[in-house]
């Protein structure tokens, strides 16, 4: 049974007919699961990705890209003509002090306590050359997550699963964790877009059921469920016999019930953090209410990757500091600093960091200046699509600072790359060629970068 079961796992559903027709997969591969692991196209440095998404857009000059010139100009009038803010504008110096950390020139503001440990900092690449396009949250989120501002195209994680499949067939290949509230744009950020639905991100919900209706009704035991499935499969088999033909879609649907039954134990198991030691739990900050939420998700991310999940994404909101920047960023940094450091340390100690790419980013950067709010000098920043900051670690990334912004932080000026180049680089690290990872849809072969891009060589070890 197990061999034939594998053959039609997920099944040759109606949509797969067109996949076979138009995709890069050859006929033999289609016969197995669309999520079965596939060999990369190129030599790969990374196998898995953990993407930490700081929704709202952290200030690059308030995190990893110090701008002393801004402190000098603090509250002086700004005539910079970009961003959405209109009328009188003034410069805003960062409320934080900066220092160099580790041996690779990484700079951090003093709020980063744990990442600053050289054991961690020396793994980091800080990329300052990326430029977004949109000034509005949902569009910018869509752009970074799907390669298109419009929303509706496949997410990076969907493309990666399309190209590489995933290792554990009892778990989704692309897992997304959010806070209680969904980020702006919602599930469009982890959509399969025009790729078949197998590649969509599965959201593990932070409270209640991790996947909707994963558990049986509380008054139905696992034995009760098993029995129901046995009766169901008997009924389905009778039906299939009566047809006198094999319809793959019907078989696929039957198989889905068995997969679901396995997932019902596998998912709770992988997200059960009770199996981690006390030491690990507190390393991730699970014992502190300020770091618990993100820490839990980071620890879960490690467990998921360990269990063979290809792409994990965590959204952390609240970075949109138009005002009260100091309070806002202090709290947000505190909530993620320890967990991220723990994640990198944990991956490193387990030998997983070399083939797990960790990315920390927002959807855009911030402006060096701000306008008044309610008539008051509000110390915050607007949206900036000309400059931003990212951290990358592991997965074949070269530690150190790549690219630069101008002295005010208003625009990237060195090693400047659009988001599509970041996407191309990410795929490249995973052994995927953006130009060959294509899917025919809407009249043309589409790709993550939309129209191609270049690998950012400076970031690669």
């Amino acid at each position, binding site marked *: 049974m197990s061999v034939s079961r594998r053959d039609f796992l997920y*099944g040759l*559903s*109606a*949509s*797969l*007919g067109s996949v076979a027709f138009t995709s890069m997969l050859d006929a033999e591969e289609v016969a197995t699961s669309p999520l079965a692991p596939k060999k990369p196209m190129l030599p790969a440095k990374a196998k898995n990705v953990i993407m930490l998404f700081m929704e709202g857009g952290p200030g690059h000059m308030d995190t990893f890209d110090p701008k002393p010139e801004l402190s000098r100009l603090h509250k002086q009038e700004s005539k910079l003509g970009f961003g959405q803010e209109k009328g009188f504008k003034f410069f805003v110096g960062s409320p934080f002090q900066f220092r160099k950390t580790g041996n690779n020139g990484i700079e951090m503001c003093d709020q980063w306590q744990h990442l600053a440990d050289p054991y961690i900092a020396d793994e980091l690449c800080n990329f300052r050359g990326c430029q977004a396009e949109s*000034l*509005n*949250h*949902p569009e910018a989120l869509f752009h970074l997550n799907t390669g298109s501002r419009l929303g509706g195209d496949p997410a990076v994680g969907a493309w990666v699963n399309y190209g590489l499949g995933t290792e554990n067939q009892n778990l989704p290949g692309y897992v997304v964790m959010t806070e209680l*509230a969904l980020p*702006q744009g*919602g599930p*469009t950020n982890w*959509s399969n877009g025009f790729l*078949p*639905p197998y590649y969509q991100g*599965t959201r593990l919900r932070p409270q209640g059921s991790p*996947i*909707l*209706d*994963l558990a*049986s009704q509380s*008054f*139905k035991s696992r034995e*009760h469920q098993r029995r*129901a499935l046995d*009766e*169901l499969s008997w*009924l389905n088999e009778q*039906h299939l016999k009566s*047809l006198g*033909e094999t319809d793959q*879609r*019907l078989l*696929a*649907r039957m198989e889905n*019930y068995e997969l*679901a039954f396995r*997932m019902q134990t596998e998912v709770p198991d992988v997200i059960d953090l009770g199996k981690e030691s006390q030491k690990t739990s507190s390393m991730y900050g699970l014992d502190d209410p300020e770091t618990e939420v993100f820490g839990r998700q980071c620890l879960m991310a490690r467990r998921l990757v360990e269990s063979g999940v290809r792409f994990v994404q965590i959204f952390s*909101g*609240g970075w949109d*500091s138009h*005002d*009260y920047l100091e*309070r*806002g*960023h*202090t*709290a947000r940094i505190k909530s993620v600093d320890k967990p991220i450091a723990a994640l990198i340390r944990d991956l490193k100690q387990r030998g997983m960091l070399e083939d797990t790419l960790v990315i920390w980013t927002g959807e855009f950067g911030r402006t060096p200046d701000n306008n008044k*709010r309610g*008539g*008051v000098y*509000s110390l915050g920043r607007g949206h900036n699509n000309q400059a931003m900051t990212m951290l990358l670690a592991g997965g074949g990334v070269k530690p150190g600072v790549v690219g630069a912004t101008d002295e005010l932080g208003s625009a990237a000026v060195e090693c400047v790359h659009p988001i599509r180049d970041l996407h191309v680089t990410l795929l490249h690290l995973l052994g995927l060629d953006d*130009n*060959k990872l*294509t899917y025919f849809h*809407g*009249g*043309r072969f589409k790709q993550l970068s939309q129209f191609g891009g270049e690998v950012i060589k400076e970031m690669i070890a």
Partner: protein
Amino acid sequence: MSKQFFFFAATILLVGFFRTPDLFADESTDESTERQFTLKVLPLLKDKCLGCHGGDPSDLKGGFSVLDRESLLRGGESEEPAVVPGSPDDGTLVGAIAWEGYEMPPKENDRLTDQQIDLFRDWIRQGAPWPDEETQAAIRDAEAQRRITDDGMIVRTSGGTSEEWTNRRYEVEDLWAFLPVKSVAECLPSEIDRNQAIDHFINRRLDEAGLEAAGPAEATDLIRRATYDLTGLPPTPSEVDKFTKAYQEDSQQAWEQLVDRLLDSPRYGEHWARHWLDVTRYADTGGMSNDYERSNMWRYRDYVIRAFNSDKPYNEFIVQQLAGDELADEAYRERNDASQEQVFQAQLDGDYNEEEAEAIIATGFLRMGPWDNAMVDADEARQMYLDDLVNITGQTFLSQTLRCCKCHDHKFDPIPTRDYYRIYSAFSTTQMAERPVPFLPEEDLSQAASGRAHVQRMLDFAVKEKNAILEKQEAAARAWYDEHELPYKTENERKDDPDEMKPPRHVGLSPTEQGQRKVREQDEWIWARRLERYEPMAQSVYNAASFDLSWNGARKLRIRRKQNDGAAPKNHILLGGALTALGDRVFPGVLSAAALEVRDDADDPYLLPGKVAGRRLALARWIADPDNPLTTRSIVNRLWQFHFGRGIAANSNNFGAKGAKPTHPQLLDFLASDFIDNGWSIKQMNRRIMLSDAYRRSSVVPNQKQLASVDPTNALLSHFPRRRLTAEEIRDSILAATGELVQSDGGLPVMPEINMEVALQPRMIQFSLAPAYQPSPTPDLRNRRTIYAYHVRGQADPFTELFNQPNPNESCELRESAAVTPQVFTLLNSDTITDRSIAMAQRLERERDSLPEQIHRAFNILLLRAPSQSETKRLGRYVNEMTVYHKSVDPKDAEYPASITRSLVEEFSGQTFQYEEILPVFESYRADTKPDEVGPRTRALADLCLLLFNVNEFMYLQ
């Protein structure tokens, strides 16, 4: 309108095309090679290589340029010549493009074909001549005079941005959609009756392929198929009995009567409207950052349902949706002999009769796209809207994807970017507005009073909470002013005072209160806006030269007439789609490649009137012209697809070169012509299709092996394709089976019970969280058909979403139906499905006494058949054993909270704060019967019902 402008006539296609006389037979080899180079090789170089190997010398990849002959002879950094004249195999070029050595161009889907590589070989073998620009131009000019050659056909359009594009050639088979539709007489042999036409065309192709067709389906399958197909619901057991009896007596008559009965059912419009709403992207909110409610969007939904039920001629349906507001203006003017001022006044007063109101409601079509101008420049927001109108109009009515032409001339189809901007210009005086439009007698407002009371209560709560916080703040402000010995000023009055002359912002408020204030202010807005649900308004448009959009314009869009509105905006081609990159000036117009002229002007017959009003109506009438080959093929292809699960041309939103070609082109043309001959009647077409043998075939394949090799996708329709029920069909049929389904006549959207975790889950909108989803208070509202549910773009019902109800941000030409695992969870474990199984068990217990009878009844209702003996026996044992199980368990009471505490990260402080949200609907909520309210025996019977909801036999239609 004349079609003469379009060059190709059917006779030329049939006779002359493939044997072009070689006009150049006498020319020398040199001349012929130069022609070959100019017309074939050079365009390939430009198209495939120039991007990286041309232009800026500092940016050349590998230091290699293809700009001139010298560069090719020299080669790149490798210092090997790319081309050695006379010997194709010596240079690097041929190896590179053949992907032997270098792999150029590097993108898989840009690779040259073998034929194209041979062109390079030939050219190099002949000495690689590179004629000068003047010679090239002469060669191109001469070529442009020849409309049809071996390389394809030139299509006369309004003209591309380059001469090369304007004069390029298309494969004739790629132009099928633009060709005039053949008349019935032209495609159907005279001895064949129209009633037989479909089978004539289908059987001919089956015969050609040597495929055996499946026999007729069983009577039960037929009534199930037809009932779902026309109404989206299952037949009742008594309908099945009646039909099977009648079918035995006279199958043809029984079938015709069945189809006619179903076409007359009001449920028909509810189901077929859903098809249309997939294409036009129906939702009750506007999506994007704020996802504002578009109050009364349901009036468009009901309009579409009425249109299908009353069999509104499709040409009227088109014109009303695209320009119903202009029709209303015309009618009002005529009816009252009104001046322009009076017409404008009527727009503000909503002074319309029923027919006019109906037409304005229809223009909800023009308000269907996701749109919000939050944080977007006004010009850009306007462009987003107009681009959306062009795209959706092209996809919906013309089956053309015009989006590509926003930035450039179409890469594959004869659509110049000029035509894109001509249609853009036709919409450029269209302004969004919620307009006063009187309610129609057939619009159901029975829920309005209770709904309004609920909304008012939510609003009052928000205002009360907000005021409490403001009072606290202002008390602190007063104290500050006292302390500083300054006179008190209100928050608004002190806004522009210098910092030292006024209290700090949010004085007296804790971070939590600051956050709460923002939430309550947003809530006040949201609920005040939702009161508009009960006003006689319609989401529509009006014509004006301009509209001043405020920063939060999507909140409120009303007709605003300016004293001096001025002339219509000037439109240009926007190069690369950029607002600042103005290309040629353009005027309103249509798709020139369709060769359907708008006016008698030999120079440019494709321009529409240019006044502020009237241009959109003229566009609509052009689309709805019986001679528009795109429109008529588009609709009959969609109708065919909704019946068979696949269009005759499989991409019903894209008839371009990259869309699938029609499998039965003659049939498509026959249907299009027949459709026009029958007065654009959709019901007649439904009937025509369903009365064919092809539609009545069994789903069981006679020869699976043969089919797998000859026609694996069943494009030739040797059997009827089996399909999974759609999301709405699943929910509606389960409700029908349990006896809970409540039929209604539309009206205000209802809120079915959705997964409670999702209903209460916080959802970010700009500045705040959206209010929780509160289901309708009573089952008779909640259990209406799914089409009447409230569709929030940012909060899909997870049940219908899982079963592939499309995302309303994109036009959906065909639904997905892939089986993914989360479907299993919802269909086995959810509260919704559990409640349905209990309701079904209760129904069975009400209607039948013994267990075997109850099992029999369940099979009858859900699977339309009696259970086999072994099924009765085995499932009887199952229910008995489960009864024992359920005696040992004690299901928990269901909880519906009357208020919840929300957490939100405050942007100002980065800290979490909490606030209370009330859910008054749950104070007097009439919940469905829950498992704890019934005994073990009922729960065990419910276990059986749950199985039957899950079996393939129920989920698939055949």
